[in-house]
């Protein structure tokens, strides 16, 4: 878990400072290259090593059900949470490791939290029924804590982010198969104040 946190922190810092993280394994090239085609999606990176950095594009979060800014500002907490404006992140069995997809999701959540600095958030840790009732309480806490630490590493103030673990008590999908379990192993974001 510590290693994951360190990597998460490192990646977050890299993203913030250079805005050019996507080519980090490409060997340096000698001559200037034409700018790459725009990257779509939420990662919002452009440029490659060796090219003059272009002005970083503003990170744009694309909610699953797009809402305009004014809609977000005027929406009730209930509506914001029902639409999962802050997206959940999902975990592997018995794990609290943040996958690359999870980090991308959290990057987007962080962008929203920066755009709406008055929001306070509770991060709920949840587990599936394949762990015990007792240990899952702690595992859920660890999952919520991992997500929280990552957001803090992106510059979100720690006092805006509370955590609570519900273990396996509140499954999102009541089913008893992997399709359900995979939805239930999650850190879930609830906006509690705006």
């Amino acid at each position: 878990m510590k290693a994951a946190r360190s990597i998460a922190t490192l990646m977050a810092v890299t993203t913030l400072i250079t805005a050019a993280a996507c080519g980090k394994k490409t060997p340096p090239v000698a001559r200037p290259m034409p700018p790459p085609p725009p990257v779509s999606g939420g990662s919002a990176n452009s440029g490659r090593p060796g090219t003059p950095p272009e002005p970083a594009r503003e990170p744009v979060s694309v909610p699953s059900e797009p809402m305009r800014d004014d809609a977000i500002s005027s929406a009730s907490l209930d509506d914001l949470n029902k639409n999962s404006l802050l997206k959940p992140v999902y975990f592997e069995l018995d794990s609290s490791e943040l996958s690359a997809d999870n980090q991308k999701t959290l990057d987007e959540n962080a962008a929203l939290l920066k755009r709406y600095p008055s929001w306070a958030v509770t991060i709920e840790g949840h587990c599936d029924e394949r762990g015990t009732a007792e240990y899952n309480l702690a595992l859920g806490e660890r999952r919520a804590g991992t997500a929280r630490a990552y957001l803090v590493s992106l510059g979100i103030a720690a006092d805006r982010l509370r955590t609570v673990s519900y273990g396996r008590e509140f499954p999102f999908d009541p089913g008893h198969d992997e399709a359900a379990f995979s939805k239930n192993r999650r850190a879930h974001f609830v906006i509690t104040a705006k």
Partner: protein
Amino acid sequence: MTKSIVSGVLAIVLLAAWPRAQQPTQPPAPQQPSEVATAITAEGGGAPRLAVPDFIALSSDAETVATAKTISQVLWDDLNFEREFAFIPRDVYTSIPKNTSFADVPFDRWREVNADAVIVGTVQKVSAGFRVEMKLFNVRTRQAVYPRQYDGSNARLFAHTISDEIHKDQRALNGVARSKLTFDSDRDGERITGTVQQRSIKEIYISDYDGENQRRVTTGRTLNIAPRWSPDGRSIAYTSYRRGGANLFISNIFAGTLDEVTKGDKVGENWLPAWSPDGTRLAFSTTRDGNPEIYIVNRDGSGLRRLTNNPSIDITPTWSPSGTQIAFTSDRSGTPQIYVVDADGLNISKKTSESYCDRPTWSPAPFNEIAYAARSGPGFDIRVLDLSTGATKSLTFGEGTNESPAFSPNGRHIVFTSTRSGKTQVFTMARDGKNVRQITKAGNNYEPDWSK
């Protein structure tokens, strides 16, 4: 042959229907009759063979007749639970003339069906309820070895008391017929508005050891989970989310009061309280230092003391019967395993090396065992670790998933949850895994504990 000594009739007044969760504190010595002079033995060895015909109603009103029938049936179940006696099947009784008093017991006929003992009782309606007289007759000597008289109003409690006293007198065994269970349940279908959907909440319940008299304890309309009986049987400690995060609460169920053990802003999450054997302290797990550690706290919230110090998860504590050690679950090795630590925090040792173990529960003396749930295939099975030999054995074998074991006060039974019948339900079984009984049927029921 046994000599019978007819002692004077003891009048035992049964107070309120309960509590009677406490048991005598002498260490049980199973199957070791202490008073050979009065203990009824089986002819030719083996378990003594008992007949428990219906108690005799001394008046013909429906209430007295029903009480008499209930007492004998519950008494049969209570005595059968400990498997110290064999039973003459009920269908044999119909061939035997019914006696109407203690004077006309058909001993010859009971002898013919190989009974070693017959329990004869009378039920008399009195102003405050019923007066029950019971005599345990040695069929061969025709003498009453254990005459007793009780006053009370609760038919089941008459039977539970008689059963416990017969086990004590005849088998030197602390029976569990008056012990209680507690567990959490979603049976009420109560829901709270969650952040995505309605969420089903849980409340704390109690019941008799056999699942009768299931009663709700909490009305928090929130998550109330993992209840644990105090050693005196008068309080239940549990984990509740009624303040938002998880905190420790104590319901004093007879006083009708509620104590908050973990209060304040910076206490983190607090889970899974476990009573010290003397009832003065709770071991629990808390994140107040950033990650789950085992702490001990006085029951009034004072005297907080940290027991573990490790960046991993430490959770689910349980006390040794002497109060000198605590077993708990830690994933410091990479997976959840059972550890034991001295109550002063020293001498941590790892006790299991399986894929995933949790919910250790220390047995009462004289057994020196820890029961726990171990991952086995897609679910969990109940296993028992003998601390003196290090040997482990399974008590369940993949019949659904089986979790959250807790010992009966005499160590001869284990309560646990299983999905073998569909939903998650509370079951009891003997310490050898046999004699499985389903305790709950409504809703889902979890994390049971047995009174001490």
